[in-house]
């Protein structure tokens, strides 16, 4: 069979698809990439939403399609809601990356430490932040505001 696909596998390509709101996190690290089935150049990618109304899902779907399409694959993106995504689906690497980028990884509100001074405790300014997955906190020690990746489980 003649294939026009490049030598990069769908998995390798999908590792380069990032969350549009947190562009340092791949969809695999975020835990929303649920499955990849490849038959020849046809690739069926299953993703799950973080939040029911997450407006990034459409952008993510398009990013997956264009990434695979531009490397000679024929993608099909399927949305699967069960089982529901929780923050337990974040990879350990995702938690490290969040910390490195100034976000507090998911944890119970009362124990949140400031990602900048690593001191605490922080208090909740708002349970809802700039995107569906974040809450707004302020450090009780250094006074810096920061985003907490909301715990959802």
């Amino acid at each position, binding site marked *: 069979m003649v294939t026009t696909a490049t030598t990069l596998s769908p998995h390798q390509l999908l590792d380069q698809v990032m969350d549009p709101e947190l562009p340092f996190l791949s969809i695999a690290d975020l835990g929303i990439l649920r499955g990849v089935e490849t038959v020849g150049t046809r690739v069926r990618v299953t993703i799950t*939403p973080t*939040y*029911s*109304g*997450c*407006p990034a899902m459409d952008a993510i779907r398009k990013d997956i399609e264009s990434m695979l399409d531009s490397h000679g694959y024929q993608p099909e993106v399927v949305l*699967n*809601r*069960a*089982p*529901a*995504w*929780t923050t337990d689906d974040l990879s350990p690497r995702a938690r490290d990356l969040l910390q490195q980028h100034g976000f507090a990884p998911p944890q119970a509100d009362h124990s949140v430490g400031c990602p900048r001074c690593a001191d605490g405790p922080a208090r909740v*300014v*708002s*349970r*809802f*932040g*700039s995107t*569906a997955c974040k809450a*707004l906190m302020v450090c009780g020690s250094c006074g810096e505001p920061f985003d907490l990746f*909301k715990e*959802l*489980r």
Partner: protein
Amino acid sequence: MNVLGFADDNLILAQRLSEWVAAAPDLELDIAVANMALDHLGVARALLTHFGDLEGKGRTEDDLAMFRSERELTNLLICEQPNGDFGQTIARQLLFDSYQVGLWEKLAGSPDEILAAVASKALLEARYHWQHSATWTERLGRGTEESNRRMQSGLVALARYVDEMFDEHQDLRRGFDERLTPVLDESRLVLPKDPSPRRGGRRGMHTEHLGHLLAEMQSLARAYPGVQW
């Protein structure tokens, strides 16, 4: 299971909540209300699509959201009630969240796999919304005389729409009371028993407020059918 009714509840409440955007008491609340509206809209979209598939007449989520009239909408009356002041909005949210947490817990075990999947996702969101509503109830209830009075007036205004939530699900009433009562007690507030509960939303018999809401929500889609932007 009444997939369309659950979809309509979330659609109409999303629209109501979004009316607060850029008008809430502070920026954080603007953002909070937009986030909650978005969660409800996401649930509504998934359930409208699912209903369209079950119905098998080829109606899409947009057809169902934008091209049904007042008598065809089947949301609970509490969802369409005007926002009132912030105290009344928090009262409505606390009542509805307390109901919806129990509803999603139940529907997460539904034999309808798609409904169960939507419910299990929505459950996590509803619990989070409930915490927000409970925190604000406590803040308003125990804040000043004025904030307590306003939140209490909100509960009085909405009490008549509470019983309707349980017409199809009597078994959810107990869990609702268990979630609600401690928060109200803590906050020095009471949900009065209304002597003449209103019902009819599920049959398309609405209060006068729904028509106005739909006029705004549907005007663009009806003026320019199929429009994209």
